[in-house]
């Protein structure tokens, strides 16, 4: 972490514990069908402090805060505001009582302007018409007061993710929030934007707000919080202060056992080139150039990681390679076969497997059972089909084999994919894609939303493919994942590769520098394609 952040986390006065907490959650219990999300959890939040709510995916942090914000109704327990029981039936009451929440998936209406989003639900109005002049002035005043600069007349869909987050915070402030809940606020930000965010948070806390940050990132918790509350499997397992613990201790508390944060792997011995991309240009849905001349190679037995902030062309690169999106220009070769304009059926046949970033949208047909999901993509070929007729016995056989090979926990192979847990759904995708024995594996965000056990499993599978001398292209927003798995790391910024590193030769901070356009200025000025040898000269 940078010096700035360390300074910010400096010796702050501890909140006085005998003051009345501004928000108290007492014995909150919340059930979902088959899941006890929160089990008798009590949390106090005081004005003027940053509370970090730390835990793995599914630990119950977001559920707890959604209860506080009125989005979910608790099955047991009560909520107190300023020591008085608050009957929070919905966000409306929560807002009125001074609770604001910035969700992980932003709650912004993209087609509306910044001002419209800020005032929505509490519009200054005259005889039913929205008084836009007042609204705009209010929005501007708020953003100046807290240093949250953003154009009040811009449409939200045209803003960067970091800017959209500011709009979300302004929305809460406009509603006079005294408690601000931020759900995984840094997952979409660059390291620099993260620092800016925490400066803003500091300012808010100094002006008397309480801030709750839901997160699973240990370094951020250590750097920015006053108090850390750790949750695991729906229960509160500990409370501490950054000064009294370290990352290893927190990790153990969070997961419940010792965690090896590093992945063991043998040194890479790259073989022949499997994937070769040259000067690839790809347009996005809005017909803007999202990938601006990328060249890269993936060799046998090599994991090439692409690091970058979401929205810098990652999904377009992946879609172009697997045939889901037509490149504007450039070439893609798989060994000695050109697949530039191949469709997904062709790329699958050529030996490309693809673990898509969004398993529920791109990866699985949730209404299909496991058998059909495993056949998907190979369903026209033997042994699954012969001349257009499916061999369901063969399909079932393969499915059974995959289920045991990849340890998919299911009562039977005829269960619908929708009825599996998230981790098992991802295993299902991995089982299908690796079961095909591909030449090249493209893994996009392969561990998003998974718990530690499932993450380890997926990582082991990816490394296994590397052992089997496959080429692997890994795209991930999680720097830790890119750093621990990759033999070579490419940094993507603004649709270009702005830096290339050997695995193990680089730190998160260095990557972060390039991910935000640092050092890329002379490259960005270079017209046309950026061949890989040119980027290689750019080593830090």
């Amino acid at each position: 972490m940078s010096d700035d952040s360390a300074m910010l986390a400096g010796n702050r006065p501890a909140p006085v514990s005998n003051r009345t907490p501004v928000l108290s959650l007492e014995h909150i219990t919340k059930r979902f069908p088959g899941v006890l999300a929160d089990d008798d959890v009590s949390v106090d939040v005081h004005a003027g402090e940053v509370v970090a709510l730390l835990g793995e995916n599914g630990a119950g942090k977001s559920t707890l805060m959604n209860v506080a914000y009125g989005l979910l109704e608790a099955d047991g327990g009560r909520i107190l505001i300023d020591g008085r029981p608050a009957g929070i039936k919905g966000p409306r009451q929560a807002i009125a009582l001074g609770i604001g929440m910035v969700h992980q998936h932003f709650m912004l209406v993209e087609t509306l302007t910044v001002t419209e989003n800020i005032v929505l639900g509490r519009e200054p109005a005259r005889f039913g018409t929205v008084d836009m002049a007042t609204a705009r002035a209010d929005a501007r005043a708020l953003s100046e007061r807290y240093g949250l600069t953003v154009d009040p007349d811009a449409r939200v869909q045209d803003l960067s993710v970091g800017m959209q987050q500011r709009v979300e915070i302004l929305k809460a402030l406009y509603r006079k929030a005294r408690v601000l809940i931020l759900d995984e606020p840094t997952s979409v930000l660059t390291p620099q934007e993260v620092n800016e965010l925490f400066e803003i948070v500091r300012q808010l806390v100094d002006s008397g707000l309480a801030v709750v940050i839901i997160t699973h990132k240990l370094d951020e918790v250590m750097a920015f919080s006053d108090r850390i509350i750790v949750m695991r499997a729906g229960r509160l397992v500990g409370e501490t202060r950054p000064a009294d613990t370290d990352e290893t201790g927190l990790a153990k508390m969070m997961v419940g056992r010792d965690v090896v944060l590093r992945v063991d792997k043998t040194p890479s011995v790259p073989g022949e080139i499997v994937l070769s991309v040259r000067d690839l240009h790809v347009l996005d849905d809005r017909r803007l150039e999202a990938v601006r001349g990328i060249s890269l190679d993936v060799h046998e037995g090599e994991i090439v990681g692409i690091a970058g902030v979401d929205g810098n062309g990652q999904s377009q690169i992946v879609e172009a390679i697997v045939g889901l999106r037509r490149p504007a220009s450039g070439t893609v070769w798989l060994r000695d076969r050109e697949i530039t304009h191949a469709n997904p059926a062709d790329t699958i046949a050529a030996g490309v497997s693809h673990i898509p970033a969004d398993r529920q949208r791109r990866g699985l047909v949730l209404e299909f059972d496991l058998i059909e999901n495993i056949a998907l993509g190979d369903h026209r070929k033997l042994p699954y089909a012969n001349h257009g007729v499916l061999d369901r016995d063969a399909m079932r056989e393969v499915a059974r084999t995959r289920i045991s090979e990849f340890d998919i926990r299911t009562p039977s192979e005829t269960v619908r994919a929708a009825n599996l847990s998230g981790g098992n759904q991802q295993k299902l995708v991995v089982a299908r894609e690796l079961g095909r024995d591909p030449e090249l594996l493209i893994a996009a965000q392969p561990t998003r939303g998974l718990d530690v056990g499932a993450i380890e499993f997926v990582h082991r599978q990816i490394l296994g493919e590397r052992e089997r001398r496959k080429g692997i292209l890994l795209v991930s927003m999680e720097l830790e994942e890119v750093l621990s798995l990759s033999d070579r790391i490419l940094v993507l910024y603004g649709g270009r590769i702005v830096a290339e590193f050997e695995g193990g030769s680089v730190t998160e901070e260095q990557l972060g520098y390039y991910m935000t356009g640092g050092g890329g200025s002379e490259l960005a000025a270079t017209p046309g394609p950026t061949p890989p040898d040119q980027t290689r000269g750019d080593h830090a």
Partner: protein
Amino acid sequence: MPDHTHFDAPKPGRAGSPVESSTDAEKRFTLEKQRTDRVIRLATPFVSVAIAVLVGSLLVVASGRDPVAAFAALFQGAFGSQRAIGETLLRSTPLMFTGLALAWGFRAGLFNIGAEGQLFLGGLAAAYVGIQVGSLPWAIAVPVILLAAALSGAAWAFIPALMKARIGANEVITTMMFSYIGRYLVSYLVSGPLSDKSGIPQTAQLPPNSMLPRFNTILPFLHPTRAHLGFVIAIVMAVMVWAALKYTTLGFEARAVGYNPFASEAGGISVGSTIIKSLCISGALAGLAGAVEVMGVYGRLFDSFSNGFGFTGIAVALLAKNNPIGVIAAALLFGALSAGAGTMQLEADVSQQLVAVIQAIIIFLVAAETIVSWAVERTRKRKAVAPVAG
């Protein structure tokens, strides 16, 4: 665009929950969910029909008639005699085809609301080709006519299919528009170029070799009936459609696209061509409905030869939950309602339109499946407390 359908918490069985920590509990939960799904799927059609009949009775009472007499007459008209049963089979025949048409569409995520138009075009092809091939032997003529009708129905669905696949034009509007266009086209043709010159807007009578024989022609010991061989063809077709959906890559791809076009695309399925194929298959099945009416019932084509079979097909498919075998049962139900409606009108003085009302209520209830799932969930909750591991 942030995906707002994605919500952090309520994914059951999500990682890290106490249940998940135990594999057995997780498996049990998955199984439980699967079972609940199945119960709801099976119960919905029956509950829907029951409620629809109940609401229908209330309407009859409100209009001052006797609902018991009305439904008794309806039953009599549908099943009371060999002739009545024949009428039920007769009327369920086109409904099986249109029901299958809609079911295939729904499976592929397409709502072919304009099946009625494709039915008209199928009837048109049957009436035209039927005369042309009348000199051929029956065993050749009939398959040729059916094929022509299927192609004609498919062709009428092709432009909406193309528009859907290429630019995403809503097929509900386009097929509906083509349905109106098709009916005016038929109206023109039967009063103009294809008219039998009798002054009545209709085509000439088909030669016997182009007709589907009645059951009592095939089996002389039966009482005279209007039910014809088309009924058997419909049943065979239902089984074929069932097999095609389950055992062919064509059906596999149609279902995949219907459930999730994005995953299908990533799985190497061409979504556009699957949409085109599926809507055309749907159109072909609807075209066959028109053909069996022309070849089995009237022997010719005229303006109003369809009794809204294309629209009733929607109810048939929905009630059958898009299962081709279920379509047979649902079509028989609606065929019976339609056959009995006349008797009901005569004996209980209740408008035949009551059948349409019942149909609509059934569609409505099947769509609002949550009513049934809510009831099922409630009874299950009472039986068992949700498993919460320690």
